[in-house]
């Protein structure tokens, strides 16, 4: 594991403390529900929620048809000028809500993947899930010419299949972080050539449509997509949150976790399945938007300064990241609408470079 990215260890904090400084336990219902609350985490989570809400309002108001900020709350509720209401309720609000939902789903799923592989690079982007989903979707679009639902199903099937193949290929006396990543790179390269092949065999318009789908975009997402992604979040998110403590134990190593009474295999399988389903839902709705799943958990961890993964923080961070990225994608080159995936790839990739740069600066092998 020497070459993988260890969780950041800042000077001044010792890694082995069990009760984090500056936290207190919240006990409810007579000890039946107890939560360890760290004010810093709380503040960060609140700030991220506020940021998302703020950007939501801004992205509803700006556009080629600008709506004054003070008219936004009314238009959301359905009052005001008819055109305002149409743009807000029909176009911009569902788009922003989809962005938040997809971002949250990717953020929390990324946190789970990274936690399970104990590796910052164990995100669905690197281990081939995203690449597989893109290949599945492009196959459905270009070979079968099927509609949106089929494309989404194709993406989910492709992603799950690829992730499973990568996982199996990386398995050799257990799955080691770096091997998972490298096998993912190899399989992704192979799938990339399949996509390139399909793109050259299609008519330009079809190929362009497939290409844009592959980049991942929130253009024209409506209430159907909002419902899909938020229902998935509401159903699957709590399952992951309930397993959060066990995940944190498992980050200490499987043996330790087992010693602490965690049934590691059952936990692993449950959270892996649920996180995969969430990633699949996000991709089905918005296409394979890259690097939210990679960056959100890492950023959340750095901001909250927790040693382990924070699921809630990662979800909120993912939501904030994607809603901001989508706003940038809409307005950066207006009136041209970039797909949000372009912005997340450039920002996320730069972040990855920075991450590698700083992790390696200290000369840690």
């Amino acid at each position, binding site marked *: 594991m020497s070459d993988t990215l260890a969780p950041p260890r800042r000077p001044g904090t010792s890694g082995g403390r069990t009760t984090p400084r500056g936290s207190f336990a919240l006990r409810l219902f007579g000890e039946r529900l107890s939560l360890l609350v760290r004010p810093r985490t709380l503040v960060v989570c609140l700030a991220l929620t506020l940021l998302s809400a703020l950007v939501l309002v801004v992205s509803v108001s700006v556009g080629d048809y600008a709506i004054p900020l003070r008219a936004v709350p009314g238009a959301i509720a359905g009052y005001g000028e008819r055109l305002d209401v149409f743009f807000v309720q029909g176009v911009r609000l569902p788009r922003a809500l989809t962005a938040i939902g997809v971002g949250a789903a990717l953020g929390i799923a990324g946190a789970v993947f990274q936690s399970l592989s104990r590796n910052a690079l164990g995100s669905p982007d690197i281990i081939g899930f995203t690449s597989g989903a893109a290949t599945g979707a492009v196959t459905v679009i270009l070979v079968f010419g099927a509609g949106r639902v089929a494309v989404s199903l194709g993406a989910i099937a492709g992603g799950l299949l690829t992730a499973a193949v990568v996982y199996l290929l990386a398995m050799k006396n257990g799955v080691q972080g770096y091997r998972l990543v490298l096998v993912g790179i190899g399989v992704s*390269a*192979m799938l990339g*050539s399949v996509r*390139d092949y399909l793109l050259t065999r299609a008519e330009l318009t079809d190929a362009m449509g497939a290409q844009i789908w592959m980049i991942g975009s929130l253009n024209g997402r409506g209430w159907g997509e909002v419902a899909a992604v938020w229902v998935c979040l509401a159903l699957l998110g709590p399952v992951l949150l309930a397993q959060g403590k066990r995940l944190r134990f498992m980050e200490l190593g499987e043996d330790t976790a087992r010693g602490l009474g965690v049934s590691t295999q059952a936990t692993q399988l449950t959270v892996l399945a649920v996180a995969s389903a969430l990633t699949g839902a996000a991709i089905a709705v918005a296409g394979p938007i890259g690097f939210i799943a990679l960056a959100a958990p890492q950023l959340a961890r750095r901001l909250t300064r927790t040693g382990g993964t924070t699921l809630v923080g990662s979800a909120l961070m993912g939501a904030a990241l994607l809603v901001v990225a989508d706003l940038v994608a809409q307005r950066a080159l207006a009136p041209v609408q970039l797909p949000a995936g372009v912005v997340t790839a450039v920002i996320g990739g730069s972040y990855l470079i920075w991450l590698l740069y700083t992790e390696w600066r200290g000369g840690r092998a």
Partner: protein
Amino acid sequence: MALRAPTLTRPTPTRRVIRPIGLLTALGALAVCALLSVTVGTKPIPVADVWASLTAYDGSYDHDVIRSLRVPRTVIGVFVGAALGLAGALMQALTRNPLAEPGILGVNSGAAAAVVIAVIAFGAGGAAYVWPAFVGAALAAVAVYALGSRGRASATPVRLALAGTALTVVLQGLIHGAFVLNEFVFDRIRFWQVGSLTGRDIDVLWQVAPFLVTGVVLTLCLGPSLNAVALGDDLAATLGANIPLIRAATAVAVILLCGAATAAAGPIWFVGLVVPHAARVITGPDQRWLLPYAAVLGAVLLTAADILGRVVLPSSELEVGIVTAFVGAPLFIALVRSRRMAQL
């Protein structure tokens, strides 16, 4: 760089016999592949006609196909394959990294991004891809190596692969942005980015030939010096090797070879990875033998892949870049799983 090769171990007698025979066999295989490449295709043309088209051109359709399509394609395939094989061997020697390869290390994406910029800026096509591909390949190679070798520890395989992937992600994002903004660019690049020898004009070869030849000659001169580098920087310096000069020369050769190959055929993955490993099985670690082997085997692999791509589908052709990806990726994964990698 005029350095006597310090060989770690005296080659075993069998290897001393096998090396020249193996190289001759490989050259024979290359000749067979080249011949097949000229004769096999949607319309099979007998060898006699091929010969006639070259010696006594009569302007018939078959002769035209041979002279204007199949011969250029074959020649470009041989050159590109040799360049990629050499580039991979050089990169692996320079970085002491079994996973080093133009695709994995982000050189291909660098070239692709630069080509996209050129298409946007000048509407360039065909032979005009050469210079941008060079610049892009060079910049990406330098960036990845700089990022991967940061810190006290030297550039480990995993680091370089990760640095290459990170750079690829950013460049892909930018390329995709350009696609969305400009459909014309997408239409051009989607055919180029597959990596293909189809429809390449012989002019492209003339454009890249000077760089290719320089790169090949430089590489073959580097063999003894790279043997010294393989012993480790300290020992090599003790032996009188000028390490910075060797590294710089190797890097220049890599950029010349990768840039020329990518400019001629588009980004092709895994040839640079597979070929040196195959060559090493026969030659052992001696770079003076490894490099010529890598060149010949690279040419054999690429022409063979091109022929395979022509016959594997009943109705249409499969681009050579796709065939090599399907041959190379499994080997990459096998390497990653192997015991040797586990210790790196």
